[in-house]
């Protein structure tokens, strides 16, 4: 199983800070599509994905226990 974290507008849209899904064996791109559909997220395309607190490319394959975070365009500073 995998924990998925949401931030900023994504968290507001989902209504949860995190959810648990089965994403093991899927690619980042596949997980994005799955989550976008399940939670009706329009802007997930513009978000980056982090696996275990590091940016991950779309073709990275999720392992069991990996923590997935969707990172909307950042606005710190």
């Amino acid at each position: 199983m995998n924990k998925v974290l949401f931030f900023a507008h994504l968290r507001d849209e989902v209504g949860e800070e995190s959810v648990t899904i089965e994403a093991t064996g899927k690619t980042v791109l596949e997980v994005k599509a799955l989550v976008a559909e399940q939670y009706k997220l329009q802007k997930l395309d513009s978000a980056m994905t982090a696996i275990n607190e590091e940016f991950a490319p779309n073709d990275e394959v999720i392992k069991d226990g990996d923590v997935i975070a969707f990172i909307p365009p950042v606005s710190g500073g």
Partner: protein
Amino acid sequence: MMYEIAKDPIDIQSVIDKVVQREAGAINTFIGTVRELTKGKKTLYLIYEAYEPMAVKKLEQIGNEIKERWEGAEVAITHRVGKLDITDVAVVIAVSTPHRADSYEANRYAIERIKEIVPIWKKEHWEDGQEWIGNQLETVAYPSGKPEEGDLNE
């Protein structure tokens, strides 16, 4: 800790003190503050949110990038989260280097990189509403839809 996410007001001097070194000829300090007017629109206050463990790692990455590019640099960065009022300090970056020109350049580099790769977001609250701001470069945060190759985990 040279790289921090702070829930309380930032003590600017304590950030500066972290980069004091005998080899330094300059300490350059950047203090980012909450602006009232953005394109004529009045902000009442901001909420900053961070993916804290990753944000600390990315601040550290920026510090390491600076040390690779500017020899002898020391870097400390603290970014605030939570509710901030107009004029409050949102971020403090201190960079010390042997020579002053490097300290200016390296500090500028740090704030620009923060706006690219550190998972921190601000929500602006106005009299007539509120919105999470997508990015402050005011183009798109990731021109290609994702960070450039060099933005990843180097």
